[in-house]
């Protein structure tokens, strides 16, 4: 018998009983069910995602429309709410150390007790606006308030009453000393801008002898 014939005989007599056939069929059937559920899950996910996107889009459209109306009203009346306070940059000079503080902000500054130091505050504001009624104040960490002006455990270093001319600054020379036994000392600037009183802690003054 040639090798060709042997191969033909071998392959022709492959066993007919294939016990794995049923096992495979069961596995496929089981997987089909899982696959179907997974596809259904994907389909449900798509439905849920579509609904979410549609809801968010609707909310966004409503918000844009409402905001647009509100913005139009504000512009027409010239009214300015709390969120509409324009950017004011405070320029601070403490003994030659200069800082620009856009929209507030605070710096840590070391000072020596009893050594007088010049403190200057200036403002950069939009053209046509005015800063007025400026206070330079030092305080401890507690019992500080601002109403028509600074109140509580504060020490007023300087008060400029009335509007500040463009380019005008507020200056004072202070001999550092603990304020109400507090060290460090907070340096505040209080001013009125656009009809609103604004108080900013602009520096923490760390005093040493």
């Amino acid at each position, binding site marked *: 018998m040639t090798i060709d014939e042997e191969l033909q005989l071998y*392959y022709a007599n492959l066993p007919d009983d294939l016990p794995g056939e049923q096992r495979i069929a069961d596995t496929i059937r089981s997987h*089909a069910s899982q696959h179907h559920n997974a596809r259904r899950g994907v389909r449900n996910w798509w439905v849920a995602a579509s609904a979410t996107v549609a809801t968010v889009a609707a909310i966004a459209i409503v918000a844009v429309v409402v905001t647009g109306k509100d913005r139009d009203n504000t512009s027409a009346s010239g009214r300015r709410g709390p969120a509409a306070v324009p950017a004011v940059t405070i320029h601070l000079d403490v003994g030659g150390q200069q800082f620009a503080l856009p929209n507030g902000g605070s710096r840590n500054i070391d000072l020596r007790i009893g050594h007088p130091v010049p403190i200057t505050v200036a403002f950069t504001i939009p053209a046509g606006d005015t800063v007025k009624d400026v206070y330079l104040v030092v305080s401890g960490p507690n019992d500080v308030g601002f109403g028509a002006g600074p109140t509580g455990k504060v020490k007023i270093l300087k008060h400029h009453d009335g509007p500040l001319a463009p380019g005008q600054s507020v200056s004072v020379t202070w001999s550092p000393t603990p304020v109400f036994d507090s060290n460090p000392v907070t340096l505040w600037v209080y001013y009125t801008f656009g009809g609103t009183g604004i108080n900013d802690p602009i520096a923490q003054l760390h005093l040493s002898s």
Partner: protein
Amino acid sequence: VSVKWGKSAFERTLVSFENYAEQNVRPLLRTATAICGDRSLAEDLVQEVLLRVQIRWAKIGGLEHRDAYIRRMLVNEFLSSRRRRRSRAKAELRASEPDFAPDHASEQADRAAMRALLTGLPRQQQVVLALRYYAGLSDEETAEALRCKPGTVRSYASRALATLRLNAGKDLLENEGRGRP
């Protein structure tokens, strides 16, 4: 979205696949057994292939040469999985040696010997012989399943037959040697 993932369309696909699997699991299993020479491994191959086919049935089910495509998947599965399954397959091959009746002892021994010779061949050569002698495919069809040229298929076949002749001769000599007093 509802059209793309429509329930009715999916269920039509599912039913169609189930029909296909039901009608083809046996021939696939026999082909896989012919290729790899081991029932357990053949079952694993067919199951894995059918599960893959099921996932992609929406595409595969509509192919013009669907059977050839699935046969190629089966061959690829065998070629890629053979290495990692080699040790297990050998163990199962030994374990799955069928019990045979004494009057069929010689026939079964011949089959076992041939199976051992075939499983000793390189995997591409095993595929070529199975598709040629069992499935009756032409060299061109076998080349398509193996993703190679028909000339390569003929080369595989030639080498496989040469190896079988050589090893069969050795086995014959060894058996004759053992049979001597």
